């Protein structure tokens, strides 16, 4: 059965386009992804503009970003998404509701996320629960940097997502210093709301583990490199690797 898709004219986005997105806006993107799917299936090209099909590296990149590739990737994404190890990172009131999701009523162990690890090296999900003060922000960033990839962050509550109830000199929204994948609104969000946020993240990871976050947040250069490698290669040490005598952020 043929599905006829009508493309709406959205008039383009107000604030420019994401890097890697086609210049024409979301309408063209839709056309291209449909064309990519048709190409994979070997069918004819569709759409009002048949010459808008992609070629070469553009096509590959587009397929990577928008169409899930191999079964192995999918299996790995499934495993990763079902075994988040959250880091115990309670800051303020939201931490009490985060403790509630571990408790028996909204049981996070149903999904396999009850293994809260204290060490950031063993955790892959940072649930920022509570208000981030300016004194705490470099420490949060340091903990986040110490986590191994792939890692995700949920900003729980209004205070770290936006400024929350307190828009003043002492707080900083988490978006300013670290990439956040899911924002959960609420003050504090109900445990069910946080659970919804975690499950949303799980769905995101299942569908697309990479999510292109390095491009989106300009996070190139934050990979942690071993000192031996940086000494021998010409690449500069990463932003968050401390050299000798460095005490910034301590």
């Amino acid at each position, binding site marked *: 059965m043929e599905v006829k898709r009508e493309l709406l004219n959205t008039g383009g986005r107000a604030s420019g386009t994401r890097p890697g997105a086609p210049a024409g806006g979301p309408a063209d993107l839709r056309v291209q992804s449909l064309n990519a799917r048709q190409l994979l299936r070997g069918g004819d090209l569709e759409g009002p503009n048949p010459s808008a099909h992609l070629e070469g590296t553009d096509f590959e990149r587009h397929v990577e970003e928008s169409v899930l590739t191999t079964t192995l990737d999918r299996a790995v994404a499934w495993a990763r998404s079902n075994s988040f190890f959250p880091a*115990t*990172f*309670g*800051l*303020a*009131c939201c*931490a*009490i*509701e985060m*403790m*509630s999701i*571990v*408790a*028996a*009523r909204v049981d996070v162990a149903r999904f396999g996320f009850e293994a809260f690890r*204290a060490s*950031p090296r063993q955790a892959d999900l940072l649930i920022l629960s*509570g*208000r981030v*003060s300016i*004194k*705490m922000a470099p*420490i949060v960033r340091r*903990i986040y940097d110490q986590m191994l990839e792939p890692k995700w962050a949920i900003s729980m509550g209004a*205070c770290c997502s936006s400024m929350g*109830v*307190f*828009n*003043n*000199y*002492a*707080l900083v929204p988490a978006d300013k210093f670290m990439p956040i994948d899911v924002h959960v609104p609420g*003050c*504090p969000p*109900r445990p069910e709301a946080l659970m919804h946020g975690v499950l949303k993240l799980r769905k995101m990871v299942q569908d697309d583990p990479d999510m292109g976050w390095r491009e989106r947040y300009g996070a190139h250069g934050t990979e942690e490199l071993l000192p031996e490698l940086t000494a021998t290669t010409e690449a500069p040490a990463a932003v968050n690797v401390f050299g000798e005598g460095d005490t910034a952020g301590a």
Partner: protein
Amino acid sequence: MSEYRRREQSITLGPLHEQLDEQSEGGAESTQELLTLNFGPHHPATHGVLRLLVTLQGEIVRDVKPIIGYVHTGIEKTAEDKSYWKVIPVIERMDYLSYYFNAMAFCGAVETLIDVEVPKRAQYLRVIHLELNRIMSHLVWLGTSALDLGAISMFWYCFREREKILDLFEMSSGQRMHTRYFQVGGVIEDIPPGFAEKLRGFLAEMPSRVDQYRDMLNGNEIVLQRLRGTCPLDAETLLSLGVTGPLLRAAGNPWDLRKADPYCSYDDFDFKIPIGTAGDNYDRFACRVAEMYESVKIASQALEGLPEGPHITEDRKVALPPRHELATSMEALIHHFKLVTEGMRVPPGEVYFPIESPRGELGCFVRSDGSSKPARVHMRDPSFVNLQATSPMVKGAYIADMIATLAMLDPILGGIDR
């Protein structure tokens, strides 16, 4: 014989402080140097973002310096920017486990400044919610402290009861935490039908639940070994450090503002104040558990004796008129308009209003300059002052005792940092 064997034989089963004295006399400290360890703000056992600089000699703590400020939110400054009733949600988020108490202290201070009478029914409703909040705060304390000691399963039991209390809060105000239920002059809404029965059922089964928690931990050898006799501090040192609340009561001083200087109709109720004898960690633990029984008693008495009447003051310059009046009365409409846009005007003055929160004396200082916004709001938070007692308590004890003491101190960093 080797050094190791000699040391091994020197371990006696005597009380801990004797063993420590023997060690230090035996010249052992000359072989050990001082190590400064940072219990960073991110640590599972620090109950929030508390940073401790611990100076250790082997495993014995020689000095502890708490460093705070990692969740400083500028609440007091934000409160100067908002009209009086808008301060209440902001000030509630200070000591985030005892939110009704924060609101009570602030509302009490403003009511004193305005000199408005809170109706009896509102006072009893306040008492019910305050005591429920006290039980809830002690439950979270118990669950997380047992977690620190290693008795992990206590956490789930305590949070089971906490969910029931939060259901009651949700019934009366619509929110689980930070409910904005207390307003200047009373409470914002009367309790819905069904609340009384649900509360009665909860209060009927709560004492047996507290019995369960006590039985699980009281007979446990490990809990007793870790809490009995560890880190005691006498009442006089505590008083000079400004410590109040269950910490002071565990040391034997029966100071409780609900009995000593009753506010909000607490003198209508019959309850006891549990105190301890030795002032060690076990007494702090036992005091708080016993306080849960007393809170159940107070809440039952308040529920049974709940009088009829308005739930907020009738003074329209302070409290919003009921909505049905807005359709018929012009004055009600004007009052509503003035209160919502500008806020209530409070005569100039300064007042300090102390209440008894689960952690000690929680005082609210409000300075008013006659406008509709407070000129200074300061919360004297009990945890902020109690934290100064950490260092004298743990000097000379083991790190494990320090963790247990931190748990028994019940610090809430939101209140400490404000």
